[in-house]
């Protein structure tokens, strides 16, 4: 049987998309619809599960199975689904508030369990749906509706958290960088295990331009370094800058002043996440920020495989469960 060839439009549901005009969410939705046909997974085998937030309306717009759940908990619904239905391709759609505030606990645990699913974290560094309060990724000092004198929280890097939880796939992309975004989503889908993709997403209503340094094509070259496995870290309009490792620090250098052999070569397969963690910690404006795949390590057992393997093993060892045998196990007595 040949699979019907699907197009992006086949993945669109009949519901009107209702994000604010100009919201970065549109672009992520568009890239998702574009990437899915290439993966060869039928629509009915695809499930989107989201929490609560603007981004979490996403499942309604997809012509797949979907669940719009409760705030912060999407990874847990996805874990239960995937643990019992390993045949499905499961995507988790979440926001920075959803994943890192209320859902911080679950975020860590889904990653450490390495459930075979894909998390797309829309990071707009603000609470969109509740109209503009600061989020765990909001910059220090930023004035928002709930921080009139400036935010005093130190922001959290989702990539650092993910690496600390020993995530097996960690990546970042940008709503406006559509080709790159498509590539990263595809790589995430191909990874076996939990994949985390942080997407810089512009909330043009409550936090417009917060990540313009990375989103705008003109600024991007200077402020962003695109990671590629096995390639040196170079950036700048004319690729004139590079990054090298000095002791245990990363340092920006002018390539005219330093031989290319000195530049850091990106290794997304390194099982030791130390250098990947250094990349995750690079922050604008001190450093260019990395996009692309920071980490992609394979062959780590997934939670869903293991939970199902144990059932298979138990059946092999003890045979299919039999109620009669269960009831009569242990001491019994007969009353005539």
């Amino acid at each position, binding site marked *: 049987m040949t699979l019907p060839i699907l197009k992006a439009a086949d993945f669109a549901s009949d519901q009107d998309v209702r994000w604010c005009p100009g919201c970065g969410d549109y672009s992520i939705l568009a890239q998702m619809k574009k990437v899915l046909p290439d993966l060869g997974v039928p629509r009915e085998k695809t499930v989107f599960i989201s929490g609560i937030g603007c981004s979490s309306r996403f499942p309604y717009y997809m012509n797949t199975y979907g669940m719009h759940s409760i705030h912060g908990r999407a990874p847990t619904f996805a874990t239960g689904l995937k643990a019992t*239905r390993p045949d499905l391709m499961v995507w988790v759609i979440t926001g920075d508030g959803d994943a890192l505030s209320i859902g911080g606990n679950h975020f860590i645990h889904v990653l450490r369990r390495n459930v075979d699913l894909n998390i797309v974290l829309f990071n707009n560094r603000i609470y969109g749906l509740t109209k503009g309060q600061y989020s765990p990724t909001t910059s220090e000092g930023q004035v928002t509706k709930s921080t009139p004198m400036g935010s005093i929280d130190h922001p959290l890097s989702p990539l650092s958290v993910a690496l600390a939880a020993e995530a097996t796939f960690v990546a970042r992309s940008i709503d406006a960088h559509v080709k790159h975004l498509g590539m990263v989503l595809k790589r995430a889908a191909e990874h076996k295990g939990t994949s985390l993709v942080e997407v810089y997403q512009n909330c043009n209503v409550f936090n417009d331009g917060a990540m313009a340094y990375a989103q705008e094509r003109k600024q991007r070259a200077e402020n962003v370094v695109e990671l590629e496995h096995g390639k040196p870290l170079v950036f700048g309009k004319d690729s004139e800058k590079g990054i090298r490792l000095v002791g245990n620090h990363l340092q920006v250098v002018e390539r005219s002043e330093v031989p290319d052999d000195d530049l850091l070569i990106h290794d997304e397969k390194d099982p030791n996440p130390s250098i990947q963690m250094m990349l995750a910690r690079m922050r604008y404006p001190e450093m260019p920020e990395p996009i692309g795949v920071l980490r992609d390590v394979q062959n780590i057992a997934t939670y869903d495989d293991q939970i199902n393997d144990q059932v298979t093993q138990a059946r092999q060892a003890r045979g299919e469960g039999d109620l009669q045998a269960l009831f009569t196990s242990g001491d019994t007595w007969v*009353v005539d």
Partner: protein
Amino acid sequence: MTNKDVKSVTGITVRLAGDSGDGMQLLGTQLTNTSALAGNDVATFPDFPAEIRAPRGTRAGVSGFQVQFAKEEIFTPGDTLDALVVMNPAALVTNIGDLRKGGILIANEDGFTEKDFKLAKVDANPLEATVINDSYRLFRVNMTDLTRKAVSEHGLSPKVADRCKNFFAMGLVYWLFGRSLDPTLRFIEAKFGKKPDVAAANEAALRAGWAYGETTEAFGESYQVEAAELEPGTYRNIMGNQALAWGLVAASKLSNKELFYGTYPITPASDILHELTKHKNFGVRTFQAEDEIAAVCATIGAAFGGTMAVTASSGPGIALKAEAMGLGMMLELPMVVINVQRGGPSTGLPTKTEQSDLLQSMFGRNGESPLPIVAPRSPGDCFDMAIEAWRIAVECMVPVMILSDGYIANGSEPWKLPEPNELSEIKIEHPEAGEPDEPFLPYLRDENLSRPWAIPGTEGLMHRVGGLEKQHETGNVSYDPANHQLMVQTRANKVANIAQRIPEQDVVGETSGDLLVVSWGGTYGACLTAVRRCQEAGHRVSHAHIRYLNPLPRNIGDLLKSFDRVLVPELNTGQLRMLLRSEYLVDCIGFNKVQGKPFSVSELIEAIEKHLPSAVPA
């Protein structure tokens, strides 16, 4: 086999009490199993401190296990004790009040030193007290010393040797009540087989205890309780949590579904997890989540995927699950949520029993969010109610709550094994692949007002569910005011209509009279026993024990109105009473106790008699 007198009695209530490190729970469980195997009806009540190792020798550290075994059918572990075994002064002073006058008191004399008196905060040796010696038949036994001697040849350290003293005590108790050593010898072999010296020492201690009873002059007689006349069949002893787990496994088989169990450890629910995880060959997947929220959410995820999904906790954990349970009812997915209640509020009394989460189950979610609730009445009944809960869940596409409690969970009773092929099948039909051009209506309803359980992987049925209000039939997000009212009403009707399909409330006794005792949950045995005694005394009292709490059985209102008075005993401050009064406008009287302890039969009889006509002042 014994040269002393054997006295035949109809039943014995014995409590074993010692320090929480003394192995009293093990002793009690063994005595229970052995008595059950001897054909007695048994009922148990373990009672232990919340601390794993509460300060040694103190009153707070006393761990007790009560068992009643009888020739007749019994429903409670008994009110007053015929015999009490105490390992130290703290155990003596905290338990002696329950021993009947003339009852047997066996004390481990080695546990009664100056140091132990201090720990127990008693001035002098209570074993010397005249009241003790006059009121009870006291036996002072040097258990620690005798145990050491008995196990000396097995070369154990004094510490390990001393640990065997509960087996010595067991041997003595077995002799006293004519119990066979065999089941416990088998247990020792299974449990300690890998440590032959420990196994041999425990066996030696057990036999030494038995021999002590047989040979010493102190005990003039032993007691014999004949087998109970239970319904013919094959029996085993079963604990509430174990029965719940088995009921779930059976329900999964009966519905041809694999079982997903998402949970986070909490007393007294954890044993369900421990039990279920042994049965992976039934297709059971257990998920120990990072917290209760994750546990219930994973359960909903599994239900969405088409699996039989169950989560369990106790009150505090159920509080955390509340938001997700509301989602579960909006999504209209079948699942089972178990609450093994304990003393509340908050962390409350973690190891003690209470029935105070009924209103939480009824109303503890935001918005209009009714869920069906069932409550088993005894350990064995947990098996049936687990199956019943899943049956209702799939019939109505809704999460169903099971309200158990610590008393049922840890208590045990003889359980007649069901015939697996006589258990009725639970039919589940998932809609099959749809036509590509026909829109699928995920919220189209059947005669039960239930929506179809279309599962991912089915072609043509792609749909999205979520917590935002849904449009009737299409399931699309809708803020239409009239639609919201329709949906709220429909979900409520769906649950209310279950009343038409569950059994009518049955009554023990006449269907009208002076007083109706209405109970639910773990107080069943005590209420039933009390009512029967009052009936035997000629009173026009009946008993209705409710197992379906939401919706209530359809004839409850009429029943309440057929009695002059209604008494509702509960281990809370009046939660079922509030529901009955508000629903049926019947002025129910409460009898309420919140002490972390079950009702005794005698206090219930007293409460009943207080409201009988003869007792009412003219």
